[in-house]
């Protein structure tokens, strides 16, 4: 089993990290680790990252050494069956401003970019950066493309883009450097909804091409 290294992040948080490479199996263990620590005394927040878990705690109710031991105990437990993520289909109008650039870079026709982007099954590894922003694994390697040299000052909410080996959807308008290939009308974040984000870690995602 992979060794989990635990480092303090200030006096009120621990950062638990696995050595690369990233894999779905290890990411599932990260989600399980978070689930297993949720009810531990003094734990205030569990933030999964890529191959890591950040744990914030109240140092007046527990201490770093106690929690580090709890983390290692939880990590040593045998892996459970991975949680069955829901399948979430996201309708996308593929008319992004950078679709032609992506097609040229990948030496594919724009339609083929769309076909490959919609064919893959993606997995939500974790959420971060913005409310409801999902880090998705599973982008077809032929569609990997570096970020734009000049980030846009504002990318509209719902934009679907490619940045390096990642694809994703911006839940809110933001400055951003990803290559924009389309947009979705599906809200990814709604503060009034329960839960407030459309996607959760472990969910499977498919993009479905729709007409404008």
């Amino acid at each position: 089993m992979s060794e989990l290294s635990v480092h303090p992040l200030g006096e009120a948080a621990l950062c638990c990290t696995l050595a690369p490479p990233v894999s779905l199996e290890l990411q599932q263990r990260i989600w399980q680790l978070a689930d297993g620590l949720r009810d531990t005394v003094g734990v205030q927040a569990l933030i999964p990252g890529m191959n890591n878990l950040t744990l914030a705690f109240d140092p007046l109710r527990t201490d770093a050494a106690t929690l580090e031991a709890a983390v290692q105990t939880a990590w040593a437990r045998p892996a459970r069956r991975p949680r069955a993520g829901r399948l979430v289909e996201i309708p996308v109008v593929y008319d992004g401003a950078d679709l032609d650039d992506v097609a040229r870079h990948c030496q594919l026709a724009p339609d083929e970019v769309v076909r490959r982007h919609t064919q893959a099954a993606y997995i939500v590894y974790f959420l971060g950066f913005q409310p409801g922003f999902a880090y998705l694994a599973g982008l077809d390697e032929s569609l990997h493309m570096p970020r734009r040299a000049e980030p846009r000052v504002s990318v509209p909410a719902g934009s679907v883009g490619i940045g390096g080996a990642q694809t994703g959807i911006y839940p809110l308008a933001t400055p951003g450097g990803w290559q924009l290939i389309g947009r979705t009308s599906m809200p990814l974040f709604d503060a009034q909804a329960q839960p407030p984000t459309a996607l959760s870690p472990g969910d499977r995602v498919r993009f479905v091409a729709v007409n404008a």
Partner: protein
Amino acid sequence: MIEVLRAGPLATVQDLGRPGWRDRGLSLCGAMDDFALQAGNLLVGNPGDAAALEFTLDAATLRFHADACIAITGSDAEATIDGRPLRPWWRDTVRAGQTLQLGAPRERMRSYVAVRGGIAVPAVLGSRSTDLKAGFGGLAGRALRKGDRLPLLDAQLPPGAGTRRVGMRAPDWNATLRVLPGPEHGDFSAAALAAFEATDWAVTPQSNRMGYRLSGPALARERGGELASHGVLPGVVQVPPSGQPIVLLADAQTTGGYPRIAVVIRADLWKLGQLRLGSRLRFVPCTPDEAVAAWRAQRLLLDQMRSGL
């Protein structure tokens, strides 16, 4: 009800933030000077985490449409009620129809107006804090402006309110922040680590509630490659490839990818909230035990206020 006659550029409703949704990408938010927010609330008889008003750098004018018990904490700004000077860090009474004039801070950055009962904007996902980036919470998810009307949860004054004088001494403020080494501390060169602690870092104008971008000598990272995205918290000091550190604050995003050279201790985060753009700060190392002791002392002070008032 409180009517905003003038708000300044960045006035918001804040409480202690929204800690429970970080794994879904929601920023913590909450008062930048969390000590001042809690002290103000306790002075007026609220729980420490009630919602109050945070004003940034500029003067503000509020008209009260009901009697209210208030306290102003945080900055060193002057304040008056219909021309009568109000003592900061003390409880006071405003009568319906009176106007609170809050001056601009002289050296510090943020003033808090706590009102008995708390500001009654709806709680969203467990908090009344304004999330300016995501546009929710607080009053309509935005900064206050002229004409806004803020509901109060309970404008009733307790019997005898305003007759008993209650106050506290403002905490000593300075721009020296105690830090603990971050997970990537050892990746930096000895020269970079020495410079980190020896420099009077300038807070650049590109700073905001998300983080303070500092300017000084470039800090070189000697070891380690690209980091996988990881969780970050207010107080984390990141060093992007430019070598110019960024101190993350209340509205920071939940994950990042830059090396973390240090973490400002919890008990010193409020000092950052009072640090002006263009001013300078210094980092000094401490130990985890000192950090916890400082946090315990701060909590104890607030607990003593709660039971003593």
